[in-house]
């Protein structure tokens, strides 16, 4: 259990390290990346449930970002290991519910349900990848700054930022307590249910103590309820261009079947 918590802490810190990179994608303003990600996800989910070929083109965006940012796809898959199965499971009953034949490959009949299951899976995976790439190429503070720029309430943004920061504090405290427990309960897997109540209570109290100190430290350095990141850096013409080009491409992909057009062009 202690190893799991340590791994979670490491994961959190790795995300910080990833977002501190200096690739061309990292240098794009958080606002532009946030806008592109939102438009991307909206475009992806708006595809018709039977338009597999049209949707396939949307992999172009995460593929470009993975290539330019230098973030390995494997890292993404590893970080999303708990949510990806859920995304994949979303359409699992479609083949049973929708058995209308769509086409046949030899003697195998592909049903409409199978196609809609595939598009649902693709939508889930693409959206998760885009969200991951946003967080992995943008500092959480810059992201919060971008949220403030689009007038997301300060309370919500601060809550998001502090939750992100305090998650590690909570995990560290949980780790120390789990280690102390396992040292006095050798051979026992996990924490016995009889200790759950006091364990959680202690964890809460200890985390509160630490959080209070952290908050004091922030107050003593001029924190006044609004992170300075809210001011953020000004978006430049290149950020504007980045957002416009991507959004235009997404709209084009939504309205035209770019996969088919590209395929035809290659075949010619």
């Amino acid at each position, binding site marked *: 259990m202690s190893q799991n918590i340590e791994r979670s802490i490491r994961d959190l810190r790795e995300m910080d390290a990833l977002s501190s990179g200096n690739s061309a994608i990292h240098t794009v303003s958080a606002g532009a990346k946030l806008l592109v990600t939102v438009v991307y996800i909206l475009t992806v989910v708006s595809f018709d449930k039977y338009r597999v070929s049209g949707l396939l083109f949307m992999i172009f965006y995460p593929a470009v970002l993975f290539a330019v940012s230098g973030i390995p796809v494997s890292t993404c898959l590893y970080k999303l290991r708990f949510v990806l199965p859920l995304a994949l499971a979303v359409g699992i009953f479609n083949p049973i519910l929708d058995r209308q034949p769509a086409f046949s490959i030899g003697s195998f009949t592909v049903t409409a349900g199978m196609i809609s299951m595939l598009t649902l899976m693709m939508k889930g995976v693409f959206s998760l990848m885009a969200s991951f790439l946003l967080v992995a190429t943008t500092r959480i503070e810059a992201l919060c700054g971008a949220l403030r720029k689009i007038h997301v309430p300060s309370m919500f943004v601060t809550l998001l930022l502090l939750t992100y920061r305090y998650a590690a504090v909570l995990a560290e405290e949980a780790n120390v307590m789990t280690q102390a427990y396992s040292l006095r309960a050798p051979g026992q897997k996990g924490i016995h249910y009889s200790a759950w109540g006091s364990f959680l209570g202690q964890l809460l109290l200890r985390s509160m103590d630490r959080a209070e*100190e*952290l908050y004091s430290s922030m107050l*003593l350095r001029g924190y006044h309820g609004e992170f300075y990141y809210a001011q953020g850096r000004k978006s430049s013409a290149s950020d504007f261009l980045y957002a416009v080009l991507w959004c235009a491409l997404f709209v084009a992909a939504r309205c035209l079947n770019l996969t088919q057009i590209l395929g035809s062009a290659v075949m010619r």
Partner: protein
Amino acid sequence: MIQFENVSFEYEKGKTVLSGISFSIGEGETVGLIGANGAGKSTVMKLLLGLAGPGAGNAGGSRTEGRILVDGLEVIPRNLAAIRRKLGFVLQNSDNQMFMPTVLEDMLFGLLNYGMSRQEALQRADSVLRELGQENLRDLYNHKISGGEKRMAAVATVLAMDPEVLLMDEPTSALDPYNRRIIIDTIRKLPRTKIITSHDLDMIYDTCSRVILLSGGKVAADGSAEEILRDKELLESNRMELPLRFQR
């Protein structure tokens, strides 16, 4: 610079932590605040910083008597922003102080909160790191540096804000002898008013010219470090011991 005028404080009714303490600390002085556990050292710091007592609006049913002044300003909520601008506090646990991902980000946090431009803040942070000889820490991740480095980074974080008074809570706790020595040398070199609380009396002797001994929420002694830290009877009657160097 700092005045405690007959200050009494209780966190809740009937539980007195400080009773009628008075002292003043002049500009440029380095004062060691010593005392056994529960003597009231941390409470003095908290009252001064406005984290408890009148500065915090006597929250949680606490009660304060007397006045606390920092550079002529009374520690009350209205003056808190101005007072905190003058004070820099280095926490005992650096992990609780360094909440940003890198040392540099942490140094910038306070400066940007006080409205400094990013460019100016970067220059200030670099200059402080240079002054401390810790330029190598600049871009390191807080969770990847050692305890000693973390303590130096915490000091740098506070010094970047150029406080008039530096408050330090147990600056040498949990440090190995080498890092302890570095911290002591750093404290000695800093040209500021300093208040240091610690049980490490050897460090207090090395860094402070004056010592205030608290006991049971009262000032048991206030005088030169030389005089108080050599007084075996005084220290032992207040649950303390002579610094190790005088025990031989």
